[in-house]
């Protein structure tokens, strides 16, 4: 198991490195510098600014400096929020996004697996058709359509919940964003669970268990659920990526001061260091999650460790 874990870890490092190199090069390929204002500055001052931000060094040196900073959790200064470093900005907004994303993923896992199991047990029944129809709709409707419609129904018409982050407190302001973020994931997880459980239920060892007189609940609980969860588990990596992307939109719609909103503001303001920092941060998060999923996979299914 340790060897397997080490090998996976070594596999993740080049990916992360590649991401940072690509992102760094992209930002430095940008035409013009961050201080090209309309104002014309004396060349001495420009040289001083360049030196202060190490822009006068060769690209390789700048890159090594950046990598060194990233390893220590320092993403450099922000260009549009002049008094803040990128790390401070990320540190301030990430907890909010984390709360949102974690709740949405949890909700998606519980509801998605639950409905998937029910649909698989009643395969081809009317209930199954309805659940899968909803799932298909959930996959097809983008988050930025679901979220405004939920706001319209629950905040504007029924007035049960606040329409924006600043309009409420605690759970009430979290509910709509979390649901809009979770809905497409619920749909994916339900479809995956159903397909995978149907597959497992038709295998020989389940037939044996049935022949021994085990009831459906016991079969699901003790025999079928664990192997059926493997494809769902491997979806967790893409799911986290999807929730991160989705939270960009959801935070924008509900006015939540999270990482996604920071990223969009940074993009529209052309704040290179901020956008670069957030991309590297997001990438590390996703690579880390894929690593965790790989390791969990190894724990659940010993055959994978052997390879």
């Amino acid at each position, binding site marked *: 198991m340790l060897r397997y874990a080490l090998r996976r870890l070594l596999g993740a490092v080049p*990916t992360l490195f590649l991401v940072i190199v690509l992102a760094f090069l992209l930002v430095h390929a940008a035409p013009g510098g961050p201080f090209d204002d309309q104002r014309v500055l004396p060349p001495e001052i420009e040289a001083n600014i360049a030196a202060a931000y190490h822009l006068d060094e060769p690209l390789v040196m700048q890159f090594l400096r950046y990598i060194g900073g990233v390893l220590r959790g320092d993403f450099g200064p922000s260009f549009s929020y002049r008094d803040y470093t990128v790390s401070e900005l990320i540190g301030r907004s990430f907890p909010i996004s984390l709360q949102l994303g974690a709740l949405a993923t949890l909700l998606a896992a519980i509801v998605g697996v639950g409905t998937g199991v029910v649909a698989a047990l009643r395969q081809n029944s009317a209930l199954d058709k309805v659940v899968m129809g909803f799932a298909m*709709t959930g996959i097809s409707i*983008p988050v930025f359509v679901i979220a405004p419609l939920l706001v319209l129904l629950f905040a504007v018409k029924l007035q049960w919940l606040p329409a924006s982050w600043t309009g409420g407190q605690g759970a009430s302001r979290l509910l709509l964003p979390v649901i809009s973020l979770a809905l497409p994931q619920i749909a994916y997880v339900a479809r995956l669970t159903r397909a995978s459980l149907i597959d497992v239920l038709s295998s020989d060892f389940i037939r044996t268990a049935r022949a021994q007189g085990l009831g459906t609940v016991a079969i699901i609980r003790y025999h079928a659920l664990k192997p059926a969860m493997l494809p769902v588990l491997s979806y967790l990596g893409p799911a986290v990526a999807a929730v991160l992307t989705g939270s960009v939109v959801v935070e924008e719609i509900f006015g939540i001061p999270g990482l996604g909103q920071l990223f969009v503001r940074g993009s529209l303001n052309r704040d290179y260091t901020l956008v670069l920092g957030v991309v590297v941060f997001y990438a590390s998060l996703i690579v880390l999650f894929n690593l965790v999923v790989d390791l969990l996979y190894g724990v659940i299914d010993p055959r994978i460790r052997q390879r």
Partner: protein
Amino acid sequence: MSMFSRAFAHMRTSRTVMFSGGLLVAIAIIAIIGPWISPHSYLTTDFDNLVHAPTLRSMNVFGTDDLGRDLFVRTMLGVQVTLVVAIVASVVSLVIGVLYGATAGYIGGRVDAVMMRLVDTLYATPFIFFVILLLVVFERNFLLIFVAIGAINWLDMARIVRGQTLSLREREFVESAKLIGVSTPRIILRHIAPNLIGVVIVYVTLTIPQAILIESFLSFLGLGIQEPQTSLGKLVSTGVPKMGNALWMLLIPATLLATILLCFNFLGDGLRDLFDSRQSR
């Protein structure tokens, strides 16, 4: 009984395919012809008719937006963009994905390992954020969005095609082609690729909605297509703040976008079912 039920299931999947395919064709035709027939242009502003609800009297069947522009023409323009995205995405994933996957699968060995390792690495990177980074660094360029969408979309295809090629490689007709001295590129193009058509059609259909989602996502954030051009994502994003008093501005483009995505997903699913049942027989 079993044969009857199978035939019934078969017919029903075909019906899903027929219905969603037909609806897509209908939407496409209206989107192409509609702007020609309508008396309005997507640019003309009418300040006597700001945020007007859908009406037949002035031929603003989808109403007007906050600048008095006709929303029917603009929405159809948005559908056109969506369809172009769909076409570009499928061509890119078709050409790059199939060639890459077939090459890796056919040659096999170390080449295969390296090529698929690259796909895995690209797969694990958060592409959408890269696309946004690209759009920030370079000007917001429509072409760039297509390039970006294409770059994401071929990965799935490459993986699936490789898997199929691995099993095709061992078949007799490939062996005999090799035996009579057909070159490797020719075998891949003439013998492997045509046999992949079934799988490829299914997966092209299933990657299209993802591409459409990416474009509308970027346009929604204001990073995609720029005014006065428009797309469904852009129309939804202008509709959101207006939904309190001008619900049609949100509902019409949102419904159309969702319908198009649903149709592509149902089409792909239906085709997969059809294809699977043919294969298992």
